[in-house]
């Protein structure tokens, strides 16, 4: 018997897609069932009350959570999102309903024993509800009470060897595509770099000292499977600078129809026989490919490594051998000044085991942004406000046409005094000697 009637939510149980309502009900039921087995540290009916509160929102079409409260674990400035319900009398189970962000392992692989341990912990000390995963990448544990926060943290660190992720004005939990672990296109080890940078900057992750949040994301190649270019203050995207490796036999096999194009990604519809000219060569954005004597040719100097041809013929074309990454800066969601995609700062950098190159860029940027960034100003906005030139200056990177999609079209150039012979100070009397009034 559900605690609250949820006639509206019930209508979301039908339909093929996994129903979160069904899931919540299942969870609510299991808590009821297990209340004798487990000494739940937060209300048994937490999920029932969540359903009730949600139903109220479905009826009223308004949110019923209060503006977040500041709660957390000692010494950390992030990792917990405080949340209180505005109808605690009706729904006492969710009067407190804080979220904990658990730093996911890079690439989001798990062993079941680890996750089971987490489930046990979370059933015991929390609502049992999770997001696998949050948008930033964390394991999100949804809903617990204030007294449990330290307990959970203690168990996570002591028993599971596992730390919290970020929230607040600090480095947020970095995330990576699966990269080399299972992808033939990874130009560097995204998981390892993600792990290393997470470890290197633990202090920045846990103790907010930034003007605002800051995100790292690691994509192994320009396909962008972790969408770093859209949602990371610093995006690390794999690339290469030598030639695409061509297996002409495999090209012939594609042309001959022996291998399905694009790894079979279009198999659900009859698109007709594969046409290398139409499907690859004509679609190459730089038009740097051609067939000659049955062989595929690429003028690699003109290739921008967009991945299209490689995506279409993974068995014939492979990324180059001289691999590294590009760094782009400033991506963010629209608040405050409009959304940004990452802007290219470092066209190419090799990744070595010291990670010195990467760290230098990161730290130069942070030094500047921490000095100059206004309160709640993302890196992208500081870049907009102070200019891309400033970013180059603080990172010691030379201006390069690769930094722009096109040169400025306004001629409003801010010359610096030291660049102009004679400087800016002029004497009006000297001027008037040549130009009487």
């Amino acid at each position, binding site marked *: 018997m559900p605690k609250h009637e949820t006639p509206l939510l019930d209508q*979301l*149980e039908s339909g*093929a*897609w*996994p129903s*979160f*309502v*069904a899931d919540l009900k*299942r*969870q609510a039921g299991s808590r009821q069932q297990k209340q004798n087995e487990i000494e739940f540290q937060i*209300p048994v009916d937490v999920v029932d009350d969540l359903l009730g509160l*949600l139903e109220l929102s*479905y009826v009223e*079409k308004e949110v*019923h*959570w209060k*503006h*977040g409260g500041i709660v957390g674990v000692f*010494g*950390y400035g992030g990792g917990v999102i405080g949340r209180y319900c505005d109808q605690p009398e009706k729904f006492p189970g969710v009067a407190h309903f804080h979220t904990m962000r658990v730093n996911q*392992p890079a*690439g989001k692989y*798990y*062993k*079941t*024993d680890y996750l089971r341990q987490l*489930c046990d912990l979370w*059933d015991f000390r929390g609502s*049992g509800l*999770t997001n*696998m995963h949050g948008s930033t990448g964390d394991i999100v544990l949804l809903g617990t009470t204030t007294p449990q926060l*330290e*307990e*959970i943290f203690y168990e996570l660190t*002591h028993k599971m*060897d*596992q*730390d919290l992720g970020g929230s607040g004005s600090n480095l947020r*939990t970095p995330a990576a595509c*699966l990269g*080399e672990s*299972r*992808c*033939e296109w990874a130009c560097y080890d995204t998981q390892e770099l993600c792990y290393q940078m997470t470890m290197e900057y*633990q202090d920045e992750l846990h103790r907010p000292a930034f003007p605002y949040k800051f995100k790292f994301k690691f994509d192994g190649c320009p*396909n*962008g499977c972790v969408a770093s*270019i859209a949602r990371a203050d610093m995006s690390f995207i794999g690339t290469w600078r030598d030639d695409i490796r061509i297996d002409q036999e495999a090209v012939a096999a594609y042309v001959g129809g022996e291998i399905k194009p694009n*790894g079979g*990604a279009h*198999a*659900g*519809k009859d698109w007709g026989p594969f046409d290398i000219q139409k499907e690859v060569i004509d679609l190459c954005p730089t038009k740097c490919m051609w067939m000659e004597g049955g062989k595929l040719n690429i003028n690699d100097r003109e290739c921008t490594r*967009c991945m*299209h041809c490689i995506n279409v013929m993974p068995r014939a074309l*492979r990324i180059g051998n001289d691999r590294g990454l590009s760094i782009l800066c400033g991506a963010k*969601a*629209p*608040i*405050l000044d409009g959304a940004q995609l990452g802007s290219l700062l470092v066209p190419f950098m090799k990744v070595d085991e010291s990670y010195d190159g990467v760290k230098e860029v990161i730290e130069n940027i942070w030094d500047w942004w921490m000095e100059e960034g206004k309160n709640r100003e993302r890196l992208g906005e500081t870049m907009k406000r102070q200019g891309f030139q400033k970013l180059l200056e603080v990172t010691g990177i030379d201006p390069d046409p690769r930094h722009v999609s096109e040169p400025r079209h306004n001629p409003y150039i801010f010359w610096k005094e030291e660049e102009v012979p004679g400087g800016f100070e002029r004497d009006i009397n000297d001027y008037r000697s040549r130009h009487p009034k």
Partner: protein
Amino acid sequence: MAFISSGYNPDKPMEDRITDIGPRHYSEFLPPVIKNNKGKWLWHEILEPGVLMHKAESGDEVYTVRCGSPRLMGTETLREALEIADKHCDGYLRFTTRNNIEFMVDSKDKVQPLKDDLQSRKHEGGSYKFPVGGTGAGLTNIVHTQGWIHCHTPASDASGTVKVVMDELFEEFQQMRFPAQLRISMACCLNMCGAVHCSDIAILGYHRKPPIIDHKEVENLCEIPLAVAACPTAAIRPAKTTITDDRTGEEKTVKTVAIKNERCMFCGNCYTMCPALPLTDAEGDGLVIMAGGKVSNRISEPKFSKVVVAFIPNETPRWPSLAKCMRQLVDAYVKGAKKYERFGDWAERIGWERFFEVTGLEFTHHLIDDFRDPAYYTWRQTTNFKF
């Protein structure tokens, strides 16, 4: 419900404290076939919707079965997934960047039983627990956010809208008959906790009424200068007003803010800084639909989604107008786009004037950019248009 301590001593928080240990190293969690072949993959193939095979230099193969998930999952369902992983996959599984679950096996014969197992599991209401799909030129999971489940600023629910849209388009999750991959995202407010601003189709919670000012609370709850500074359009200024004390009935003058309603575009940023400025409103709140964004650099550059429907009301619980709109968008795309053509590339090729014609959506004044200087660059500075 007795309090059971973990061992943590609130009086000595630093005792035994472990901090800054970071996440577990991913290598602990890699299935053997993955670990052994890391960095040595040669190519992959999608054997059928939801089933990938990756071939390594060593000759090893890993078969991945991907299935959908509502992301918002109780431990019950999660444990069920772990069970499946134990049963078929030697106790390993992973989650994708779009919240699908991936089960991996190291030989082809293990695929079918795994798949059958996953497909067979359903909730009582009839929905799949682990529908297999989400690969290739088809629909994958909708990236989304908290909505009415956990956040304080949403203008709509995330889980509900996602469920409705995935139900409407479910077939496409298990098919690969789109021109290219189609990435739908949902964010429940302008903060856009996701890559909604760069999605093929984006569903966005949006307020349409300026904050209510709770004059009694502003002074207590907010730093007024921060609230003023938070407004991107400078709609807010410090002000004073007279209120009647709830208890004493006395009139008193308090510091508060004033909002120029006509300058407000309902972003809620002031509310983030000041809880006394709530926005939520049954009639005001609803959805904006954006389309044509992308993230990959393939063929064309990453790009922002554009607003194509200014408002869809919150028709709980099943948002029929939303579902209809998504259907219109997807159908028109599938009908009109060429192989490999992403949604936005298609719209740009046919031109936005045709886009509104073929999708049957109405073009309203709301869709014309009027936010700051860059707006100009989205107007049409050419005579090249289609009748």
